[in-house]
């Protein structure tokens, strides 16, 4: 997997992406033999089976797989919302129970599917402040975190801070929920289907924000069906099917991996599909097409 460990600094510059959000020590996570079952009525269903995975600090990974393949379960296990039935999760080499594990676990941010569901406070500020307050930070620290987070998602505190969360549009609410997680200054950000049910303009906005976060050195794990966006944002791919890792590797134009995606009922990113249809090897790509592909990614 690609990505350098980043003890980064704020990305700086104008625009919502990465503005004012201080780079934190990025976390590296490893799974060893992770398994998880759940009961549905009288039957036991395996959500994950023997998953081994390594995420280097600062890496941006696309977690792909059909619905029901275990992507959400894996994210929840990484964040410690579920306890594995078998195997373990190591954060920065530490296992559960060891000194410093819990503190690091709290620095893994998880944005759920349709995260607007978690908005409950009377003002945007208050909602974003919920996480930092739970971490026991001082009022000044909370304030600072909230302001940075709101700026990072393009909802500046002076304009949106006092507004009621439900007065925002769908796309804005999505970004507000993301701010709620960013305010906790995560070293690794896990996102479960962040683009679903968003209009195209909001999708583009969110993509830009995630791109900015990635640039600050924050690790990203993107569990999504939107292969095109994932292709543009992530350097590596992990493919899950029926709870098992069926493929993993780098992900960029020409890196391969098409067969794994197709044989597990997944779509290819548009540009990759186009190239496949043209029946050419990536090495033969005329510079114009390759440049176009890079530009779109």
């Amino acid at each position, binding site marked *: 997997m690609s990505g350098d460990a980043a003890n980064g600094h704020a990305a700086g510059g104008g625009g919502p992406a990465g503005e004012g959000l201080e780079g934190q020590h990025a976390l590296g996570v490893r799974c060893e033999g992770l398994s998880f079952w759940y009961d549905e009525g009288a039957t036991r269903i395996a959500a994950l089976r023997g998953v081994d995975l390594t995420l280097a600090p600062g890496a941006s990974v696309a977690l792909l797989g059909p619905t029901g393949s275990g992507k959400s379960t894996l994210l929840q296990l990484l964040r410690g919302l579920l306890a594995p039935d078998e195997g373990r999760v190591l954060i920065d080499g530490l296992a559960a129970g060891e000194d410093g594990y819990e503190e690091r676990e709290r620095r893994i941010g998880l944005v*759920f599917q349709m995260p607007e*569901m*978690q*908005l409950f406070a009377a003002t945007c500020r208050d909602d974003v402040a*919920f996480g930092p307050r*739970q971490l026991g930070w001082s009022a000044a620290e909370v304030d600072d975190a909230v302001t940075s987070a709101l700026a990072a998602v393009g909802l500046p505190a002076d304009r949106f801070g006092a507004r009621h969360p439900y007065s925002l549009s769908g796309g804005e609410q999505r970004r507000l929920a993301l701010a709620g997680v960013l305010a906790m200054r995560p070293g690794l950000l896990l996102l479960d289907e962040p683009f679903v049910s968003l209009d195209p303009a909001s999708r583009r906005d969110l993509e830009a924000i995630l791109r900015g976060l990635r640039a600050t050195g924050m690790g990203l794990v993107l569990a999504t069906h939107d292969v095109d966006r994932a292709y543009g944002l992530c350097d590596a791919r992990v493919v899950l099917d029926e709870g098992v890792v069926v493929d993993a590797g780098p992900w960029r134009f020409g890196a391969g991996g098409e067969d794994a995606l197709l044989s597990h009922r997944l779509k290819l990113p548009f540009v990759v599909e186009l190239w496949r249809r043209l029946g050419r090897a990536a090495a033969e790509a005329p510079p114009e097409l390759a440049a176009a592909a890079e530009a779109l990614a």
Partner: protein
Amino acid sequence: MAIAQYYPRASPIHRLDPRCKVVAVAALVVGLFLRSSFAALAVYGLVAVAGLLLSGVPLGWVARGLRPVVWLLVLTFVVQLLFAPGPAFYTLGPLHLSLRGLAIAGYLSLRLVVLVVASLLLTLTTPPIALTDALAWLSRPLRRLRVPTEELALMVTIALRFIPTLMQEIDTIMKAQRARGASFTRGGPLRRARALVPVLVPLFILSFRRADELALAMEARCYLPGAPRTRLHPLHAHRRDAVVLVLVAALVVLAELI
């Protein structure tokens, strides 16, 4: 998690008209309370057990249905045993154990069991929509008092249909807030109650939005409150239902006379 859990099977009990079943169980319950004697209890108990066996529902499901009342059973038994008046054979301060106390405790606990088993017999062998249809039909006389029984029945059906969905949503919202550092297990009752606000507020909002959208979808499918509606599976009474009702009536009389 099952509230009105239905176990599909082709048994004589399943085939009975739900209205008949509701009336039969109601009669059993009333009869149970009319007469306090072990003999009567035995009659009703036997009927309930016979019904269960005929229905072919696995005992495990029945046991699961009894689980919620286990504590109530134990409590009833213990309280009656220790506090019921009567000649004591053992005393310890305010507590005294007597044979009469034992009898009462036993009777009340067994009666509770028979009650629960009888209602389980109803819910395990009748699909929820048939149950609400039966209750709607039986409460038709209330329409004369302008009670909207048909609309209420539909409301109950829809509410039941969304319970599993709501459970999933509660779980997801709780996990999302836990991911933001919330805890639902720490602290005393007041703290835990406050911790539920970030779960209940979104749940309410989701539910209101759902109600709006569902109402619109229903109108789009030509639903009109108060308009007459037919059913995919209308209720059909047969001779066997009448027979069962007569049998039940006879049993109640028998239990009274014993």
